[in-house]
């Protein structure tokens, strides 16, 4: 299935293990996971709560490092990085889309989208231009001065997508992006993710919802910290219901 294996993977887990100690018990949140995601793929990491998908998302997002094993993003070993390097890497390589949008409430829509660019050290004018462009691409070019609280949930999620795109990341990492939205706006957001994928972006979608996972091309199913399925979404063994995805 990974026919593009000639090129090195963008995301590579090599026997990644993540353990947490909770009191006396040791929890294996990620148990020897190995996987590769290539540039331009649209992958859904799906699993129930406690399956280790959040751990995976944190590791992919460079918010956390593996206890053992290696995580390579764009060929670089993230486990060896300092906190500052991780912050830089998050800024350069990753675009986050969160379930709760996670916009900064006191900043205007435009300023919100410009935050990653600020940390990337771009000039004020550049920031403005890029953020404006990103907002136009998600259809919010007329809401620049608004505060997030003045927008609907769907609009806020589109702002967060624009923010994820602003610094041209290698990977767009969407964590339950439709979780806080009604099904119609949820479909809209998924539509945007699909079009981003079509435009050549690598999209990793983390969800517990099979029907949403079905939006992706490839599904990685996790259970108890292990990969139990890794294959195309249209493979019946993926367990996602392709038919339920509407709005195509």
């Amino acid at each position, binding site marked *: 299935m990974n026919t593009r294996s000639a090129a090195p993977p963008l995301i590579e887990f090599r026997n990644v293990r993540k353990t947490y100690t909770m009191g006396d018990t040791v929890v294996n949140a990620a148990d020897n996971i190995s996987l590769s995601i290539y540039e331009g793929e649209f992958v859904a990491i799906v699993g129930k709560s406690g399956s280790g998908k959040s751990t995976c998302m*944190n590791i992919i*997002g460079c*918010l*956390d490092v593996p206890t053992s094993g290696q995580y390579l993003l764009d060929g670089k070993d993230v486990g060896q990085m300092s*906190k*500052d390097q991780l*912050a*830089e890497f*998050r*800024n*350069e390589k990753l675009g*986050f889309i*969160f379930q709760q949008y*996670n*916009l*900064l*409430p*006191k900043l205007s829509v435009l300023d919100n989208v410009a*935050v*990653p660019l*600020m*940390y*990337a*050290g771009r*000039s004020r004018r550049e920031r403005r231009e890029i953020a404006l462009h990103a907002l136009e691409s998600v259809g919010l070019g007329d809401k620049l001065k608004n505060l997030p609280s003045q927008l609907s949930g769907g609009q806020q999620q589109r702002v967060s997508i624009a*923010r994820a795109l602003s*610094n041209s990341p290698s990977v767009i990492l969407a964590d339950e992006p439709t979780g806080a939205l009604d099904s119609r706006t949820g479909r809209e957001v998924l539509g945007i993710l699909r079009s981003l994928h079509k435009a050549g972006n690598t999209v990793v979608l983390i969800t517990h919802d099979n029907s949403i996972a079905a939006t992706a091309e490839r599904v990685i199913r996790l259970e108890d910290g292990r990969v139990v399925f890794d294959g195309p979404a249209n493979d019946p063994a993926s367990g996602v219901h392709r038919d339920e995805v509407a709005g195509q």
Partner: protein
Amino acid sequence: MRLTESFMLAFQNIRTAKFRAFLTMLGIIIGISSVMVIIGLGNGMENYMTDMFQSMGTNTLTVTLTGRGTSRELSVDDLEQIVAENSTFLQELSPTVTFHGTVKVGKETLDSTSVTGVGERYFDIKSYELEQGRSLRYSDMANRTQVCVVGNYIDEVWYGGRSVGQSIRIGGTVFTIVGVLEQELDTMDEGGTDDAVYIPYTTAARRSGLGTVSSFLVTITSEDLADSATEVLENALYQRLRSEDAYLVISLAQILDIMKEMINVMITILAVIAAISLVVGGVGIMNIMLVSVSERTREIGIRKALGAKERYILTQFVIEAAVISALGGIIGIAFGYALSSVATVAIEALLQVNMAVTPTLYSISLAFGASAAIGIIFGFLPARKAAILNPIDALRYD
């Protein structure tokens, strides 16, 4: 670039919680303004005293011969000789004799008028100018004449400005007024400097029944030489009298220095006490910054996820604390100024003393620096707490 960004963010955050920021600043405002007023008060006191001492003559030494511990005596000529021998330090000499006797103009008794026997150079030493008539002369001293020079107050009040040639009774003796001094103080009051009569010291010494003159005014060549001049004079007196108890040399400049030092010590202690409120203000800032950090935990998580390094978060919060505190400092300085003006007016109204409470530029810059420093110091702990937050936990925080 990043720093101006942090400043803008800080102002933005302060603007969204103005009242809270103001309350936080209050400690700093009160602290800074009280330190300023206290230092201003100290300055005012010092200036006021310097002025007062200078009008009395900081370039003069007062010599009192007590006669204790010695059988030797010094005459006016001996003193003249001492001054002449030490001309590098000592300039002029005038004996002074305080005369106790009732002063009468016609049938009226002038209770508050002071009578002093002085030498012919006394008015030069005191830099009193003559308005009418003549001054006291050497011949008056030699002949013990019964003439006097009066202050402007006596001339104005008792003689309607035409006192020269008139007579005045001092201790039962009739004296002729030969001269009137110019007005010395801005306002002439009974008992003030202008309510005085000066007679030849020789006359005064004889009339008061003292054979010898025991008090002298000596001018020094320069105020800066007050210490050495005092020493020189004391040495000369010791050589002649052979007893340290027999004389007393008082230098106004030295007294002024001592008093200035005392004021400084007092003001420093008061300012330090007032500065304690700055520490309290700093703790207030720390407190509110800690609240702010936990309120904004999610924001910190978001910023970190989007690529903010620890030091950016740290800088942002430290700058925010510093801005709050420096703004408090600026308001405090303005308030301190206003308070100083009010204090100046109040002191004048209550004590009839013209003492300007003047905060110096030094104290102002010190106040501002202190307030900014307090923000940085007390903002550091909360900022560090924010900076080292784990982004995963921070993102999940509600």
